[in-house]
């Protein structure tokens, strides 16, 4: 229906000729912007509603309770996915989990998945690549967090933490938050928070869709296949991960651009690896975590995530 509506708007109301390149660009822009807007509304509200039942304080209590019997890693990873991520929260979260007696490896499971699978990435993925690819993306992200957290947890990580963090971690966790809000207030928050997320990222998303629309209209189909075909394709995965690291702030712009690039011949696995690296290997987060752990642990953490994303990229390229 949205397709017909956009057709009508571009060709009838604005009166563009259908074979004009610019009409295609405009059509793509309007169609994608509206589709992304609707999906963002849906997914941010849905994730906000899920989060209502799993506030982070409750999640910490559940993971540290011992009731999960060995399923702490996948649980932490899953909870990381439904918790909104903010790089400035990484340190309080890291220390707070340690104070709750949660092993560092389990905390890493949470920290790896939290930026990787979040409401914004999911909405943009749905808009760009559909349900199947989005599910594969979310599942890979949660799996990545589980496996890497578990792997890191095999080592003695405590000695790689800064001494002030070790001192703080000895303090017992206290449930000091006085929930002054009624359930009704919290339900109202879901919508308010969802709208404020959308408002923050809207300029980036629109810029991304605009660039995507221009690529869609002016770059010939299959253009990139010439460069990224059989031979060069091998290097495209690690290269795209490398380029992605400093791009964190523009994550919301990147996914709509990648959608257009995939249509023009960039392999889907390479594109997914790139997008995972953009959101999962965040430079601001690394700078934050540098304050609590030494370079050795930070590099191990980042190296493992980057390496796994590259492997996933190859895997997806061979499947799709």
């Amino acid at each position, binding site marked *: 229906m949205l397709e017909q509506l956009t057709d009508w708007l571009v060709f009838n109301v604005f009166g563009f000729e259908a074979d004009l390149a610019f009409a295609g660009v405009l059509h793509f822009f309007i169609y994608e912007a509206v589709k992304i807007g609707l999906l963002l509304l849906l997914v941010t509200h849905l994730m906000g509603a899920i989060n209502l039942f799993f506030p982070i304080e409750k999640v910490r209590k559940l993971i540290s309770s011992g009731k999960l019997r060995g399923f702490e890693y996948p649980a932490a990873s899953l909870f990381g996915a439904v918790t909104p991520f903010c790089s400035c929260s990484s340190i309080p979260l890291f220390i707070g989990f340690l104070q709750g007696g949660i092993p560092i490896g389990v905390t890493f499971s949470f920290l790896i998945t939290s930026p990787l699978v979040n409401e914004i990435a999911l909405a943009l993925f749905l808009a760009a690549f559909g349900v199947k690819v989005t599910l594969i993306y979310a599942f890979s992200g949660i799996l990545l967090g589980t496996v890497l957290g578990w792997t890191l947890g095999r080592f003695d990580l405590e000695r790689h933490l800064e001494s002030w963090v070790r001192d703080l971690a000895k*303090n017992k966790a206290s449930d000091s938050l006085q929930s002054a809000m009624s359930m009704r207030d919290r339900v109202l928050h879901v919508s308010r928070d969802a709208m404020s997320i959308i408002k923050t990222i809207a300029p980036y998303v629109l810029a991304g869709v605009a660039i995507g629309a221009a690529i869609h209209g002016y770059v010939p189909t299959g253009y990139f296949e010439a460069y990224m075909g059989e031979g060069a394709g091998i290097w495209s995965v690690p290269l795209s991960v490398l380029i992605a690291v400093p791009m964190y702030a523009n994550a919301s712009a990147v996914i709509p651009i990648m959608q257009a690039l995939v249509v023009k011949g960039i392999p889907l696995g390479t594109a997914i690896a790139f997008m995972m690296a953009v959101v999962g290997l965040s430079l601001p987060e690394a700078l934050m975590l540098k304050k609590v752990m030494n370079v050795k642990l930070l590099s191990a953490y980042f190296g493992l995530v980057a390496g796994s994303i590259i492997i996933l990229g190859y895997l997806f390229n061979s499947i799709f």
Partner: protein
Amino acid sequence: MNIKILGPGCSNCRVLFQNTQEALKSLEMSADLEKVEDYAQMMSYGILGTPGLVIDEVLVSSGRVNTVKEISDLLQKK
């Protein structure tokens, strides 16, 4: 009254600080409003996400930016 904004100085913490200032102004209340940027001090309130809002040494909110109205309500309950 003493109000503390917990957070390392990211944009969310700055917005919360401004909203709190506005809430105080609209209620014509005066309070000691301070920023806490030291992690050890922040963690003593038991937060798991920033920004955190502390009114008279009680953590009333963490992990979200409260609106001016929410803060006004919280202040009036005190």
